[in-house]
């Protein structure tokens, strides 16, 4: 039944796009691909060490327009890059932390097995659902209008969107609890706070940390995009490189993003293994 519905949706999508002529790859896909790939293959960072120290820009008739020391220019770019990476990491870290703090009470209200009062549970689920549905970028655009350009908008945008993701993951780990153990704690005559801290918290804490690390890693990737809308960090440089068609600089930027995410992934995997 659902498979059939899915098949219909895919067929309809392909058919309508094709009939509107939107499924073309452009006029020279192969030439463009090769050209782009060639520029990507030479990240600009290499110039900081191997670039020409005296690059002359001349007009068509041969007059000297400008002389540039490529090594100095790219070294300055790398410096800016390092600072932007640090800002990106800060935005992701603070945004994720704020998200987790906001998500925790909402997840406790939303988890079906904790039996929070119904109106509160529904409200919490609605808030989490909305936060998840609105993209970080959209939150960012709204917040830049409210708190102005800069990392604050980025932190808040990430916090608001990730609150939805975190909240859902937290609520699900609460729901997967072994309720018999919780009931056993309750059966000893423990008060609700004691039941939570002895029956629920020890079991869900490692899962919370693991989910938080996952969302954090996700946000490092996400916050690189936030710069596009002026919320600071690597995205600002990416935006610049894209609008000036500086693919070699974009290559450097992407290398840094990949390295950042992979390094974080390695660390978070260690932590998660230690937690189990």
């Amino acid at each position, binding site marked *: 039944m659902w498979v059939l519905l899915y098949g219909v949706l895919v067929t309809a999508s392909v058919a309508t796009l094709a009939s509107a002529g939107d499924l073309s790859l452009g006029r020279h896909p192969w030439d463009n691909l090769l050209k782009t790939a060639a520029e990507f293959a030479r990240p600009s960072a290499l110039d900081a060490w191997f670039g020409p120290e005296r690059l002359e820009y001349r007009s068509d008739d041969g007059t000297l327009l400008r002389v540039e020391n490529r090594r100095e220019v790219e070294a300055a770019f790398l410096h800016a890059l390092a600072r932007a990476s640090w800002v990106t990491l800060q935005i992701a870290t603070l945004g994720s932390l704020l998200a987790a703090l906001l998500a925790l009470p909402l997840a406790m209200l939303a988890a079906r097995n904790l039996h929070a009062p119904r109106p509160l549970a529904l409200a919490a689920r609605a808030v989490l659902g909305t936060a998840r549905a609105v993209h970080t970028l959209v939150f960012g655009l709204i917040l830049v209008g409210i708190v102005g350009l800069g990392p604050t908008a980025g932190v808040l945008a990430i916090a608001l969107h990730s609150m939805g993701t975190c909240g859902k993951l937290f609520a699900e780990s609460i729901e997967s609890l*072994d309720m*018999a*153990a919780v*009931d*056993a*704690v*309750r*059966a*000893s*005559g*423990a*008060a609700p*706070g*004691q039941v939570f*801290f*002895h*029956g629920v918290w*020890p*079991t869900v*804490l*490692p899962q919370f940390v693991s989910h938080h690390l996952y969302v954090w890693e996700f946000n490092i990737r996400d916050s690189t995009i936030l710069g596009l809308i002026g919320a600071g960090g690597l995205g600002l440089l990416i935006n610049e490189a894209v609008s000036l068609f500086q693919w070699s600089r974009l290559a450097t930027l992407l290398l840094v993003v990949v390295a950042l995410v992979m390094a974080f992934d390695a660390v978070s995997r260690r932590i998660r293994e230690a937690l189990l």
Partner: protein
Amino acid sequence: MTPAVQLDGVQVAVAGRVLLQVPHLVVQAGERVAIVGPNGAGKSTLLKLLSTGLPAHRGQVQLLGRGVAPQRLKAAERRALRRDIGVLMQGLHLVPRLSARSNVLVGALGRLRGADAWRSLLHRYPLALVDEADQALAALGLQDLAHTRADRLSGGERQKVALARVQLQGPQLLLADEPTSALDPAATTQVCNALLAAASGPGRTLVTVLHDLTLLPHLATRVLGMAQGRVQWDQPCTDVTPALLQQLYEPGPAKNHH
């Protein structure tokens, strides 16, 4: 002295099916009662009813002199009652990531008052209680496993930890569902002694569901034979004959088997 348990005209039904019918049953404080009977006889249902884990849908239930049904208890009253009723159920689990000792100390949560209760939220307990927990574990031969996480213990060890937890609770009414089901003979003796120790003291009552009938003389002075959701007979332990038991486990062919 008020009876530990008094049931009048009680009926328990789940999803329209009557699981238990008890016209009248009184267990005096200080008694040791064993419940025997085949699977599906309503033994566990009766135990759950007595642990307030299952509501009676008809009749009157009095536990430790406090009316539980038909009136509804307030949250604080329910907590106070739970604190006085110790439950050792199959499937009443330990908190997996806590150490054996922490799990035992969970039993004492209901006893803590004032500042101690607040400190317990940080998993800090009065030293006297920690000593008590270690002694309870040692009495069951688990002194070396006090710091082992509950999910790393074997089935028998978990059962012992659950028992130590109930001991720390110090309940007036102790309910145990097949407390020796996962244990070897040596451990069975240890657990029986610990159960009796937990239930010794003025007015403390022990109700056990038993499958191992050789334990009857050790754990009970009075035996209830149950089948088909009803108490079929109610005898002092000394009067329980093999014939009575056989009649319980193998009812006449004309009655059940068609």
